[in-house]
């Protein structure tokens, strides 16, 4: 019961924050609110038992991405211009997508239902096998690193791609001075 109440309160706060971001036109406030949004969602992740996700979301959403957004604003402009177009088409797009999603919820198992397919097929197998196969207490680390280690290798590659992408766009590769001399010769 207390869980449900907490969740509902957090979710309403999230909705309010999101709507405030829609209305706000000072980008500094927008960025701060998006940090707030991330922190609130991290809290929600804790109530949903995803402590690793909460940790990451707090570090990334409220930390790194806020820093990056702020540095971008410092390099650009702080105020948003009022749009000249009407919001009709975007509104229709959003409504159609939302309707498709709501249609999808009609046959979803209820929230937290222990008989849901997602909670009876592969998930329990991970929980049962982790102590035997890998013997680490944090099942998330076991799956992340071993059972689905290849996904995580891909994840590292995504980060790497973003890194060299930003280098290409903004600064270029730096090398030790002697290497650079050798390269120019």
């Amino acid at each position, binding site marked *: 019961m207390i869980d449900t109440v907490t969740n509902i309160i957090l979710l309403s706060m999230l909705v309010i924050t999101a709507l405030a971001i829609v209305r706000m036109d000072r980008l*500094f406030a927008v960025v701060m609110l998006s940090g707030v949004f991330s922190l609130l969602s991290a809290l929600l992740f804790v109530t949903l038992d995803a*402590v*690793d996700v*909460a*940790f*990451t979301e707090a*570090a*990334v959403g409220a*930390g*790194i991405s806020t*820093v*990056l957004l702020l*540095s*971008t*604003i*410092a*390099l*650009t*402009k*702080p105020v948003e211009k009022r749009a000249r177009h009407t919001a009709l088409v975007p509104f229709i797009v959003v409504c159609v997508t939302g309707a498709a999603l709501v249609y999808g919820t009609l046959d979803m198992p209820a929230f937290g239902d222990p008989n849901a397919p997602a909670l009876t097929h592969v998930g329990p197998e991970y929980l049962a096998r982790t102590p035997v*196969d*890998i*013997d*680490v*207490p*944090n099942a*998330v*680390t*076991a799956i*992340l*690193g*071993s059972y689905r*280690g*290849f996904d*995580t*290798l891909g*994840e*590292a*590659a995504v*980060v*790497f791609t*973003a*890194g*060299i992408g*930003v*280098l290409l*766009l*903004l*600064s270029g*590769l*730096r*090398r*030790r001075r002697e*290497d650079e001399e050798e390269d120019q010769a």
Partner: protein
Amino acid sequence: MIYHHLILRVVTKVLVGTIVLFALYVQFHGDFSPGGGFQAGVIMAVAFIIYGIVFGLRNVKRVFPEWLVHKLLALGVLIYAGTGIYSMFMGYDFLDYDALSPAYPTIGQHWGLLIIEFGVGVTVTGVMVAIYYAFAGRPPSISNEDW
């Protein structure tokens, strides 16, 4: 740049060490509690970013030179992939950490997790710091008063 903020400078000096320590804890304690390479990498990068914000970009680049950052971000991915390639050479499937200790598979798994998390941590630290350097190295277009 911001030479007159004495309190910031003192507090940062104390904080940076603690942040690095916390990052190392998150890195190597990831098997037992929430956290792992990615989170540790972000926290480690934050230590350098804070140092850079307070003491200026030039100073942080003396601590952690740019060329080293650019080598590290590639090295991490190679550490990760290298673990997998090692197990291939041992006759196991790619990324099968049993190869690290064939007689005691769970110990091999432990080692595998430690090494690959370390690889992820190295890459993430490198990338986050590199991105910060890239953004901070651009001339800003709005001054402090305009915020």
